[in-house]
C-alpha cells in the first residue's frame, strides 16, 4: 500500500514537472516573434537571472535606443577594444581617451638648484603642453627655472625674475615667464601651447632653498 502511494506521488511529480516544461515552451513560442524578429515597437529585452533576480542584458526601445545592462550590472569591453570596434566607435573612444589623459601634474620640493624631471614622455607620444606655472615657497624671493627638451635636442632653459614668497609665475607664449607675481597658479591667464609628436622632457629648479612648486597641464593623444 505504501509502495503504491509513493509511486503515485512520484508520477504526480513527474507530471507536474512536465507541465512546467510545457508551459515554458509555450511561453518561449509566444515570445519567438520578439526574440527572433527584433520588433522594437514591442520593446526587446534580454534578461538573465542573477542572484535570483532577472536583470537586463540589452534593451532596445521604440526610439531605437539600445541600453546595455542596467543599474547594478557592469558592461565590459576588451581591454584593448581597437579590433572590436567599428571605425566611428573607435574614433569616439580615442576622443574620450584623449580627454581622459589630459592631466595636471604638480610637483613640489626644495629644488634648490637641482633639476628635477617633472614630465617625461617617450618618442611615441603625441600631445601638447597647455600650461606651465611655477610657484615660490616661503624662503624667497627667488628665481625659478624650467628646462624643456623636445626630441632629445638642445634644452631650452627659461628662468624667471625673482618671485616673492608664496607667489606664482606662468610661462607665456614665446616661452617667457610672466613678470608680475600672482597669488595662485592662475593657469587660464598663463596659457601656452607646446605641441609635440616626439619625446618631451620637462625639468624644473629654483635658485635657492625655497620649496618651489611646478604645475603642468598637458594632454596626450593616443
Amino acid at each position, binding site marked *: 500500500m505504501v509502495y503504491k502511494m509513493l509511486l503515485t506521488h512520484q508520477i504526480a511529480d513527474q507530471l507536474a514537472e512536465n507541465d512546467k516544461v510545457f508551459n515554458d515552451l509555450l511561453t518561449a513560442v509566444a515570445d519567438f516573434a520578439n526574440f527572433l524578429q527584433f520588433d522594437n515597437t514591442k520593446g526587446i529585452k534580454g534578461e538573465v537571472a542573477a542572484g535570483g533576480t532577472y536583470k537586463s542584458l540589452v534593451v532596445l526601445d521604440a526610439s531605437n535606443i539600445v541600453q546595455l545592462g542596467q543599474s547594478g550590472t557592469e558592461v565590459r569591453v576588451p581591454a584593448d577594444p581597437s579590433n572590436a570596434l567599428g571605425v566611428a566607435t573607435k574614433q569616439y573612444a580615442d576622443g574620450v581617451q584623449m580627454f581622459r*589623459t589630459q*592631466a*595636471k*601634474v*604638480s*610637483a*613640489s*620640493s*626644495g*629644488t*634648490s*638648484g*637641482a*633639476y*628635477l*624631471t*617633472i*614630465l*617625461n*614622455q*617617450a618618442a611615441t607620444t603625441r600631445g601638447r603642453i597647455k600650461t606651465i606655472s611655477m610657484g615660490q615657497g616661503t*624662503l624667497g624671493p627667488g628665481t625659478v627655472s624650467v628646462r624643456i627638451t623636445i626630441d632629445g635636442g638642445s634644452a631650452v632653459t627659461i628662468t624667471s625674475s625673482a618671485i616673492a614668497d608664496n607667489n606664482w609665475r606662468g610661462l607665456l607664449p614665446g616661452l617667457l615667464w610672466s613678470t608680475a607675481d600672482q597669488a595662485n597658479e592662475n593657469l587660464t591667464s598663463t596659457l601656452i601651447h607646446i605641441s609635440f609628436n616626439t619625446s618631451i*622632457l620637462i*625639468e624644473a629648479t629654483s635658485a*635657492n*632653498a625655497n620649496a618651489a612648486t611646478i604645475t603642468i597641464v598637458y594632454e*596626450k593623444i593616443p
Partner: protein
Amino acid sequence: MIKFTQLMTFGLGDKTVSFNGREPFTIGDKDFKKELLAIGVFEEQENGDLVYSGAVSVPMKDGSEANIDPRGFLAVNKDDMKTMPDKASFR
C-alpha cells in the same frame, strides 16, 4: 657618495603622493598609480611599489652638472657641489 634624500610631492587632480628621493613608496589606488606611471618619471618595482626614476641633475662649482644614479646616489664630494642653502636634501 652622497645620497639624494629630497622630499618631493607629486599631485594629479586632487590626489598627491610624497616621497623622499628615490625611496620606494606604495600606492594603493590603482587608477592613481596608473596616472603616476603615465607621467614618465616613475617606475614600478617587482613588488608593485613605485620609485621616482626621473633624471635629477645637480649643479657643481665648476659649472658642470652631476647626475643622480638610479639608486639615488651622487658620486661627487659634497664640497664640490655648488653652494646651496638646503644641502640637507643630500646626505
